[in-house]
Structure formats: structure tokens, C-alpha cells
């Protein structure tokens, strides 16, 4: 007789279905179980919890400022004076994530020789992000 397969552990009971009700051309759509149509546009800031790179883990989210400059979305982290650009919030924060990851690696490689400004940036990075390597 074939052995019984081990049962997978139960996960969080999030798996659900949502049904959208209403006129798709209207703005008064409602969904069952609490889904909603906000019709809001891009926020002015978000809490970023990913660099888009599994080599890093977040300790604390970054408060990212979002603005539109001549049709380009700019995602900036003023505390370390870094920014990323893109066509949307997501693509701009991905670009910022790449920049921060590169900055982290370069400062880590040279941490014994950092001046006061870069030392402050290095400490700030370590408040938020840790490398898995």
C-alpha cells in the first residue's frame, strides 16, 4: 500500500472569493465581503518593505516620498538622499530599491573607510535593511 502523504500545515485562512457587484461604468461599485472601489490616485508617500531583492530583509519600513516631475514618478528616501524613477509608484520604488541595494553593498564593502556623512548613511541603512549574505 502506498504511504499516506503528510498533510500540509494549515495556513492563514485568507483564501477567499470576492464578487464585484454594480455597474462597471459607474463609480458606486460595491463588492461582497468588504471589497471596495476607492478610485484614489497615487499616494504622496508609502511605507516600503521590499528592495525587490531577496538578498535583503527589511527590519523597519522606509518612508518613501512620491511625486510627479514632468510625467515621471520619483520615489525618494530623503534621509539617505536617494531616489528612484519610473512610470508608476511601483516601478519608481523598484528603481529606488535597486539604488539602495547597490548603496548598501558599496558602503558595506568600504565601511572601514567611510567619512562622517557616509557613516551616517550606513548607520541609517542598517536601521532598515539587513543583508542575508
Amino acid at each position: 500500500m502506498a504511504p499516506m502523504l503528510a498533510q500540509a500545515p494549515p495556513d492563514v485562512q485568507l483564501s477567499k472569493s470576492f464578487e464585484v457587484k454594480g455597474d462597471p461604468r459607474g463609480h458606486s461599485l460595491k463588492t461582497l465581503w468588504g471589497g471596495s472601489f476607492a478610485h484614489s490616485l497615487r499616494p504622496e508617500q508609502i511605507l516600503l518593505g521590499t528592495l525587490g531583492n531577496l538578498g535583503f530583509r527589511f527590519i523597519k519600513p522606509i518612508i518613501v516620498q512620491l511625486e510627479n516631475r514632468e510625467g515621471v514618478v520619483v520615489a525618494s528616501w530623503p534621509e539617505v538622499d536617494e531616489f528612484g524613477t519610473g512610470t508608476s509608484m511601483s516601478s519608481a520604488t523598484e528603481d529606488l530599491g535597486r539604488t539602495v541595494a547597490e548603496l548598501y553593498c558599496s558602503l558595506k564593502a568600504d565601511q572601514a573607510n567611510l567619512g562622517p556623512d557616509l557613516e551616517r548613511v550606513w548607520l541609517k541603512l542598517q536601521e532598515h535593511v539587513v543583508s542575508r549574505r
Partner: protein
Amino acid sequence: MEQSNALPGTGPIPTLLALLVCESVIHDAETQKKTLVGLFGKLSAFALPVLINSIGLYAKLVEGAGKYAFKIRVVSLADESVLFEISQMGDWVQPELPLEFGVNIRGLPINSFGDYEFQLFANDIYLGRAVFSVDKLTLPLAPPPGPGEG
């Protein structure tokens, strides 16, 4: 020393391993296994507005623990307007194990062709996205009638 990624009053920030768009996520209640049906990145429609009869989102996360308010948004990348938003509390009771979930949405209205994305947040912290596009479906022109036809 192992650093904790705990936030005051919240759990650690989870790492998103996978966020996939499909036609439907089937959740087997007995084994807790998920079956993803019809993974896709592009939909085609003849005309607008169109309702997407069934669209599913599967997420797999690691390195979390405790309670989270998960938020899923469907956003049009043309103007970043939010088409759909749902929030759901989740309790991550086994931190050593990944957390995975699936959400199915029936009748999502699409009013313009272009790119869209699912965005995933945990406790209002942005974790990642999955993009799909809705394109106009055009049929190829019929070939001209041959000699002796029509």
C-alpha cells in the same frame, strides 16, 4: 547576533516570495494545497468596458509572525487609480513556515486597455506587485475572395 525585524506594535516585515496572477486559485480544504489555474499576464477583449469573470491572486510570504492586516489593491498603471481594494486580517501562527493565500475576484470591471497590477501590503507596508495587461483583441482580416469566388 540575529537582528529582529519587529516593529513597535506589529509583527516582523514579511518577505514576499511569489505573487502570481491566474484565472482561479483552488484551495483544497483537506490538504491546504493550492492549485493555480490558468496563470497569465495578458488578457484580450473585443470592446470596453469588460468584466473579468474570474481573476485570482496567489501570494507566498516568509519571515512573518503574528497578526497582519493584509491589503490587496488592483491599480490601473495608466493613472494609478485603484480599481479594487480588499483588506483582510491574517494570523501567522507558525513563523517557521511560509504563509500562502489565494484570492479570487469575480467580475472585475475594466474600463480601458492597458497595464494593471495587484499590489500587496501588510500593515500598510508595500511588499510587492504582480502586473497584467488588458489588450484589444482584433481578428485578422478575411482574405480577399479568390478567382471565381463570391
